[in-house]
């Protein structure tokens, strides 16, 4: 299955929706999508994994690159709907570096609270 990425902005936050299989080089579009928001000055981001069907080592390395880029620009990255992948992220020791929320609303509410800073 192909990989696709869509996104929208909610206030000063970008919500990114990866769809399909994040398991090959096509996943670079996810990194590009996130980077394009960072370049526009948007540093609050929600990655909604609800539409993601599969992730492998390639997907993990691309995620690392998103996390690092956003951390490097002093931003906040929230993850939602990751239940299918939680175990993998935890095993890899990544959950320590991820802000995880049950769903998009919770993540947006959290980011809304931090908007004043």
């Amino acid at each position, binding site marked *: 299955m192909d990989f696709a990425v869509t996104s929208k902005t909610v206030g000063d936050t970008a919500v990114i929706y990866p769809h399909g299989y994040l*398991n*090959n*080089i096509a996943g670079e579009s996810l990194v590009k999508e996130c980077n394009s928001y960072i370049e526009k000055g948007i540093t609050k981001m929600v990655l909604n994994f609800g539409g993601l069907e599969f992730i*492998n*080592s*390639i*997907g*993990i*390395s*691309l995620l*690392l*690159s998103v*996390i*690092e880029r956003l951390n490097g620009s002093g931003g906040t990255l929230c993850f939602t709907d990751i239940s299918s992948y939680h*175990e*993998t992220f935890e*095993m*890899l*020791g*990544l959950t*320590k*570096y991820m802000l995880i929320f049950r769903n998009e609303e919770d993540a947006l509410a959290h980011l809304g609270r931090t908007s004043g800073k």
Partner: protein
Amino acid sequence: MSLELKKALYSISSLADLSQEINSEKNFTTKIQSVLYVIMGTFLANKGAIFWHERDKGKLIPVAGKGFNETGSPRLKIAVEHVLPLSKNEPYLLGDGNDTVLSRPLKNSLRKAGAGLFIPIWVRDEFIGVIVLSNKFTSEQYSPEDFELLKAIANQIAITMNNHSLFINLSEQIEKNRELYEEMRLIYHDTIQAFAAAIDAKDVYTKNHSQRVAKYAVAIARELGWNEYDVEGIYIAGFLHDVGKIIISSDVLNKKDSLTEKDLKELRRHPVLSSKILSNIKFPWKDVVKTIKHHHERLDGTGYPSALAGEEISEGAKILTLADSFDAMTTDRPYRGRKDLNEALVELKNCLGTQFDGRIVAAFCKILEKEIKGKLPQPNILPHLDKDFDLSVITGLLEALIQELSR
């Protein structure tokens, strides 16, 4: 499930990811970048690069990368001579006790760029390149299990890169051979053209005759759908068809009075003489010599040297006959002036079925029609003809001939 088991399963699935990428149909650049992503995702390295040992230049060239060499960060450069003395396919961790074996410049370059680990990759005695990784994103140390996995991955990548290198070498060799062949082909053509000029020079009336015949023959062959290889063969045959005239007396060739029986007999030896001269040359195209030998045969069997008739005459010989005769008609000869295009076409028509094959004449007329209407970017026939013909008469004649022959 224990954490160790989960990690082991993740390692196994990473190996599966690796083999999927290595065996994919993707181009090499995409493939090697994907492979790098697999490694980085497997070991949670946020920076990674794969360098390729370019043997000719003795340099390590980055073929895949992420994180290193990005704007602002110091360039990661690795010199081949610093890597060659190290163990093959063994990971080297910076900052641990083992790194004393690494040369200072190598260590400095790796550290400055943010590298934490690297592994020189080899296939047998062939140095293939280097994989470089940063430390783990999670700040965990690389474990002995990581090293074992990395060695297995490095071996696979080495073989993939080596195969690609062999393929590149082969492609380069093929390209070199092709260039060499092209050069030889041009030299061959030049030689043949020089040879043809020598033939034409002997007969003052037939300057450039061989060249025109070659061009006309090529045009007809293409119109008949010949492939380019065979087209080249008929081009060569066109150039060399009169080579036997070298042996025939200039007095006969340039005689202004009508030829005697004896002169004719002498002149008619030239196709056989041509084929005898050329029979010692090993042409890559089949039938060049035969085509030349029979370029004066006639469809009705009254030609020479073998009085072949109809289908006994090869298509190549028929093409050459028409090209040769048409040029003879439209150029001055010692014993008569040239015909204009109109007269020449009428003669082609009159000699249909006796001297010329209808299919060949039809093809020739179609080319002429296209050239007159400007439909061919590079006309082969028209530039050699007098321009004073009446366009409507000629096109009418051509159309009528083509129509008659299509029946």
